[in-house]
């Protein structure tokens, strides 16, 4: 039967403290082993569970602490090798995990596919067959609706336009092949092909960049507040939370005490991370040192560095400035209600391109300016929340990545001097992949294109 490896998030989205990413297939264990830091999963016993960390093998970035269950065929739900990765944290990290296993060669499971495999491999008995068919139908219909809903009209038009560009190019190549003596179309040249493929490549790259931005909008901008003890970090946090009537979703993890709080600042959703540390100790730098801050910073999209205006800059402050170099950050000079001992010139110098805002959080002064600074940072005055059309569906992102890969192959083939009809294979593949996003893969449309674009026939 089907032995390719499939993967999906198998817990309901957005609910529950634990999410599970499940893989099934011949490659399940291998794929998990590649991203798992801990025991070598390819060597562990079947039906065992292991603690460890998920790392992105390309960047070595640490993503998540997890528990991984290894279950080998045949005594599994699908009668294939099955891996279940239990992770904490929000939607963002689960999606990231899923994207990672897809990137490593797993295929996103179709709706109901685990159950289908279970059935086809004889795991589910006959009496359940009817139910399986209903499930496939129901899940497919639902998935279809969701996919259509998630496909923004503007995005759909953009992808359709790219497909049109591609198919015109392909039709051009095809017409050269099927009608070699037809003299009205010049031969498709490497030059022209390179231009086309590079253009579509850059557009898809742009879509993926926007996808990341979209993800930020949807999942919140992970925001870290740092600063020496007693500079006013918890006041800042409380102010942001109270001011904005935050939806507070406390998700106490089972292995880590992370509390995330979501606030919406002028349309920018902020996810305040590692707030527990701030609340309980108000002492993050002192307690766990610069190293820990570095870790928090690495995961953050936005950093709010708080300084005490009532004191002169310390070496610790300067170290923190070093840390936020090349990151999105806003510098707060707090306690402006007290005597100012801080050297403003030095702060401005150290802050470099970062914005500096003066606040007196206890007096609730300067908060407007801070909120404006946050909004400016993320929308830069040009992006309006409602104007964004972005790709949010994991499947769509996966297809876009594959499309990018196919285009890359085509571009390489051009450089290698491959004949046009071979280069065209990957261009057609790109067209098909994009078609899967907008739900159109009918091959016949190429032939339609051929005959509407060119006057053919001898």
């Amino acid at each position, binding site marked *: *039967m*089907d032995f390719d490896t499939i993967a999906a998030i198998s817990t309901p989205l957005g609910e529950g403290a634990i999410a599970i990413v499940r893989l099934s297939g011949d490659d399940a264990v291998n794929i998990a082993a590649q991203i798992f830091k801990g025991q070598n999963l390819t060597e562990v016993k079947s039906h065992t569970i292991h603690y460890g960390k998920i790392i992105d093998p390309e960047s070595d970035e640490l993503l998540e602490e997890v528990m991984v269950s290894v279950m080998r065929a045949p005594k599994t739900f699908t009668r294939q090798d099955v891996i279940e990765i239990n992770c904490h944290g929000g939607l963002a990290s689960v999606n990231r995990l899923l994207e990672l296993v897809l990137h490593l060669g797993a295929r996103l499971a*179709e709706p*109901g*596919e685990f159950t*289908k495999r279970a*059935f*086809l491999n*004889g795991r589910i008995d*006959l009496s359940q*067959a*009817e139910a*399986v*068919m*209903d499930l*496939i*139908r129901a899940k*497919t*219909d639902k998935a279809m609706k969701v996919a259509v809903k998630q496909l923004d009209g503007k995005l759909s038009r953009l992808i359709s336009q790219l497909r049109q560009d591609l198919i015109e190019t392909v039709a051009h190549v*095809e017409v*050269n*092949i*099927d*009608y*070699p*003596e*037809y*003299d*009205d179309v010049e*031969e498709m040249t490497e030059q022209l092909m390179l231009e086309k493929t590079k253009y579509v490549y850059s557009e898809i790259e742009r879509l993926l960049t926007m996808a990341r931005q979209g993800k930020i909008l949807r999942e919140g901008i992970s925001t870290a507040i740092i600063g020496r003890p007693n500079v006013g970090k918890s006041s800042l946090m409380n102010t942001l939370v109270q001011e904005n009537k935050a939806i507070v979703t406390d998700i106490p993890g089972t292995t880590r005490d992370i509390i995330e709080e979501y606030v919406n600042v002028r349309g920018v959703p902020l996810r305040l991370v590692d707030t527990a540390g701030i609340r309980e100790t108000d002492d993050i730098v002192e307690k766990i040192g610069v190293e820990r801050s570095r870790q928090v910073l690495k995961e953050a999209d936005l950093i709010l560095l708080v300084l005490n205006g009532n004191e002169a800059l310390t070496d610790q402050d300067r170290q923190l400035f070093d840390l936020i170099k090349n990151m999105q950050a806003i510098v707060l000079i707090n306690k402006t209600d007290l005597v100012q001992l801080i050297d403003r010139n030095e702060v401005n110098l150290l802050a470099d391109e970062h914005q500096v805002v003066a606040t007196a959080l206890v007096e609730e002064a300067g908060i407007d300016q801070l909120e404006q600074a946050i909004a400016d940072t993320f929308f830069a005055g040009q992006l309006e929340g409602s104007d964004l059309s972005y790709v949010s569906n994991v499947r769509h992102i996966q297809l876009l990545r594959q499309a990018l890969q196919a285009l890359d192959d085509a571009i390489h083939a051009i450089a*290698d*001097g*491959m*004949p*046009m*009809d*071979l280069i065209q*294979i990957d261009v057609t593949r790109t067209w098909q992949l994009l078609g899967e996003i907008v739900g159109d893969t*009918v*091959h*016949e449309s*190429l*032939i339609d294109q*051929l*005959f509407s674009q060119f*006057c*053919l*026939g*001898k």
Partner: protein
Amino acid sequence: MVYDAGHFDVIVIGAGHAGVEAANAAARRGAKTLMLTLNLDMIAFMPCNPSVGGPAKGVVVREIDALGGLMGKVIDKTYIQMRMLNTGKGPAVRALRAQADKPLYIQEMKYQLEQLEHLTIRQAMVERLMIEDGVCKGVLTETKAAYYAPSVIITTGTFMRGSVIIGDLSYESGPNNQRASVKLSEHLEELGFELVRFKTGTPPRVNARSIDYSKTEIQPGDENPSHFSYETKEAILDQIPCWLTYTNETTHEIINNNLGLSAMYSGMIKGTGPRYCPSIEDKVVRFHDKPRHQIFLEPEGRNTEEVYVQGFSTSLPEYVQHEMLRSISGLEEAEIMRAGYAIEYDSVVPTQLWPTLEIKQLPGLFTAGQINGTSGYEEAAGQGLMAGINAAANALGIDTLILDRSQGYIGVLIDDLVTKGTNEPYRLLTSRAEYRLLLRHDNADLRLTEIGYELGLITEERYKSFKEKCALIEQEKVRLSKLTIKPSQELDQKLIEAGGTGLREPIKALDLLKRPEVTYSFIVSLYEETDAIPVEVQEQVEIQVKYEGYIVKARQQVERMKKMENKAIPNQIDYDAIGGLATEAKQKLKQVRPLSVGQASRISGVNPADVSILLVYIEQGQIAKRSEPII
């Protein structure tokens, strides 16, 4: 009085390009075969363009040859010009095309068929089928001769209720003023067959002596012609050129002024015509901003002055045809010998066929060729061959043959027809094949000779030489993989001249061949070896090595496809009993009755969820079978 005219294994009605291949294949498989034709002087007649092959079509001719068919052998003996097309492109799309000598082609084909041991050829008009208990048992001719056979193949092309139209003139006729076959068409309708009306057309023929070739461009054949058949040894070097000229604004003005008189535009023609073979009226109307269209002047043979005006298909009145032609450079004095015309005809909706080309509702009856909604001699011949193979199988109880989409263009053609149907005359294009790189004209023998041999279509002698070729290819690849090429100034210079870069360290010849600038002959030129291997072996080695990456990728796709293709759907499946299927999917599945889940997935209107449900349902049946108690 109806009389018993004889008993056969296979009866073929029609002797066009489909009919002759069907008769040949059936007879070669040992079936006692009868071929009936309206006119013995028109066997394998080419009513339209005088050429065979071209992109996709040329590959079909080679596939036919690899399966013991006749088209390749006959054209190789009778061509007036041979050209390899797309030589500047990749190996998958190179294509051979021949200009045919029409009268000679007929003669040669007839002669070849007359030599076949199990074949009887007779001139007759078939009026109806003889059916007993829902099974086809034979045919009845207008002269009341009853011929009996368990397999009957209809290959009547455009003859069924054919109607020729020139301007406002319309009369019942097959192509080229031959008798139309009316009663058979009516009979099929009575039997409940779904028929559809298609249309095609042909241009006027002019007298070569009235053409001023000096005003046109010459289109010569190749100096060293290649051939379609793997058995052909001798080339015809005395080739005849074609000529190229163009329509112009004046021509277009004449057409536009007379558009109302064109049968196609006046509403006289109801049938659907092919987009890839448009009439000149169509071209001028649909692409009105094009200042000129190509016109190829193609001789119809060595011993005739008739010239085919390629690209000028029309159904305008004869006097307008004169006027149009004479506006064209080189044709100012042109004398029309036969006027162009449009022809409408009945064809069978091909989703009524199994992939063996047997009609689902009437066991024992097969249809092949243009009657199945295709267009083109090669498409017809490919189907004829397959119908002949399978009709013999039905009669003799031997193996049937269905080619899949990765085995040949013939497989693509038949799968498209029986799975998707067609709403216009179907023509093969290379872009219809998803595994184009595997379906090359150079490897048709590698793909199909083994099958041809197993089915008894290929001679022992030919098979032996095929095996030798295969061995040589492998040997040469092994040799190149062991041969080390060392860097040298001389070599670097040669490589740079060829557009590449020099060598840094020793390299295996096989790897050097993978470079874009390096050809097989380049490698051979580095050594002074005289033991040259045959050109076709060199070609194979070069292609297989150079494009290995793409070929491997394509093979992986084929493997994935085969998983679904091998999942058979039981013949007695009841789609109405499958709860989860969408209504549209149910209707389509009931109509097409696909043999495999793979085929089902290609039917438009059957979506992935339906395919999943189908899989589950079939598997359920398998489990039920497995769990039955063994008594």
